[in-house]
């Protein structure tokens, strides 16, 4: 059963289209990674799913409900961490947690206590005296403490140190293992491939691709590096389909290869190869490739 659906979801601000025609589904218990560069429309999509924004066209459902007209019901069952978390600077973490807990009718605070301990949350000082990372921990606590069915997290680990990032990723995996659904945006591919089952890549407000992490990896380009006995010329390879020259040296060529490797090897064999290293599929390269591919499709955008 789909917990989140987007069907032609679009949002315009004046004449500027922030997101356009988004179509995806997220199933129960799934961790869905939403990837894209800054300004691609990640936060806009998340605010549409939270019912904070009103869609200009299309529709979304969350937990089978309309996120705008049933906002209170959706929010009761959802934890939300905003992208640019802003907390009342004079209040302490404890005051904010009390506020949210009372408004949610949360009487059992034992899980909130566990979270505070686990993430070493500073609760007794005004928010304005805390570092960005320590504020973010309060944000994570506010999103998770009522043990919702679904988490919508916008750049959740921004500002967290690596130890806390690990802890957070563990929390996400536990949450999903318990049947919870996670929609998580990030511009950090590494994190998404560690925790997400499926990934969507958004660029300029449109989905470039939606696939499983394994599926993406299968279609991701391999990196092949040749060292030659004599001078090397990248032009030998640049005309081959599915091949992009990533780097060159006087006797060296590094290629990103998508698709069959045989034509590359045939060309290389003709030029006295001294050494060859091949690295497995690289999602970073794939991520960038989607951008370039879209840019090539739309020359007006290429500048």
């Amino acid at each position, binding site marked *: 059963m789909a917990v989140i659906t987007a069907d032609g979801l679009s949002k315009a601000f004046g004449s500027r289209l922030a997101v356009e025609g988004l179509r995806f589904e997220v199933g129960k218990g799934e961790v869905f990674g939403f990837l894209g560069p800054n300004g691609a429309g990640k936060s806009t999509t998340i*605010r549409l799913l*939270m019912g904070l*924004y009103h869609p200009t066209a299309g529709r979304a459902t969350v937990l089978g409900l309309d996120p705008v007209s049933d906002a*209170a019901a959706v929010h009761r069952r959802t934890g939300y961490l905003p992208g640019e978390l802003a907390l*009342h600077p004079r209040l302490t973490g404890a005051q904010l947690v009390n506020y949210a807990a009372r408004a949610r009718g949360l009487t059992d605070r034992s899980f909130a206590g566990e979270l505070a301990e686990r993430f070493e949350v500073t609760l007794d000082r005004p928010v304005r005296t805390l570092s960005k990372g320590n504020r973010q921990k309060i944000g994570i606590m506010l999103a998770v403490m009522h043990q919702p069915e679904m988490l919508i997290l916008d750049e959740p680990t921004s500002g967290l140190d690596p130890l806390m990032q690990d802890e957070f990723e563990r929390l996400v995996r536990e949450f999903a293992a318990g049947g919870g659904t996670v929609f998580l945006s990030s511009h950090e591919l590494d994190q998404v491939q560690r925790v997400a089952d499926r990934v969507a890549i958004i660029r300029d407000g449109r989905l470039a691709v939606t696939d499983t992490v394994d599926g993406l990896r299968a279609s991701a380009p391999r990196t092949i590096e040749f060292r030659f006995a004599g001078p090397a010329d990248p032009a030998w390879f640049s005309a081959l389909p599915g091949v992009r020259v990533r780097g060159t040296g006087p006797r060296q060529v590094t290629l990103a290869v998508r698709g069959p490797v045989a034509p590359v090897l045939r060309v290389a064999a003709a030029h006295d190869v001294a050494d060859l290293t091949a690295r497995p599929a690289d999602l970073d390269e794939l991520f960038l490739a989607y951008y370039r591919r879209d840019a090539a499709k739309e020359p007006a955008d290429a500048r």
Partner: protein
Amino acid sequence: MRAEVTLLDLRLRRRSLLGYTAGMALYTLVVVALYPQFKNSVSLDQLTRHGSAVAALFGATGTLTSPAGWLSANIYANFLPLIMLLITIGYGAACIAGQDEEGTLSLTAALPLTRTSILVQKTASLVVQAIVLGVVTMICVAVGRGSGLNITPADLAGITIAITLAGIDFGLLALSIGCLTGSRGTAIGITAAVAAASYLISSLAPVIHWLRPARYASLLYWSVGGNQLTSGISVSSAVVLAAAGAALLAVAWYGFRRLDLH
């Protein structure tokens, strides 16, 4: 009825509300204490005798040495409305548009509360703040009965209700402009301009004849522009002030339900 948002906002405004209210109380006590020095001053009454426009600009019309004239010219026609509007317009513009611009509203907006509930709770916070200022001022004036400032309790309660309602109305105007535009600056700017115009119309209408018909458009006329200190709040004034508040709340509701929150 939930009150978490009301209580949170009152906590956030606590310092400014305490500061304004303490200042207003102190000022009121001084005005009250000075009354015996001025109640027989003939020169003071000459200031307004011939319908002076300058005196009217400061909210002073009619006799200044009567208890009602003294309180009106020093507190109810000018200083109290000013402080009241600083509190209510400031909060009205900040509580939705301002908090949304800061990003702090997202915490509340993600809670299981309908937008209607959020708006009602914020309106309740506005009402509480206006009542605190109005009632504290009223108590300080009542203390002045000892210094010969004899105002009937009914009249004092009447003007307090009138000024509190006007404060709430202007707060709701700022709130509704904030909900329609999402901009705290626009809400404060437009509401302050409307309040300034209302004040000028209400205070100058008694001495500038061509302005008289316009006074019905001024919420401050319905609040402090008549003789509320000697005859209390009229039914028509109360109805106009309450109806304006209800209409503005409806506009705010319309705007807030359509507002994109960040």
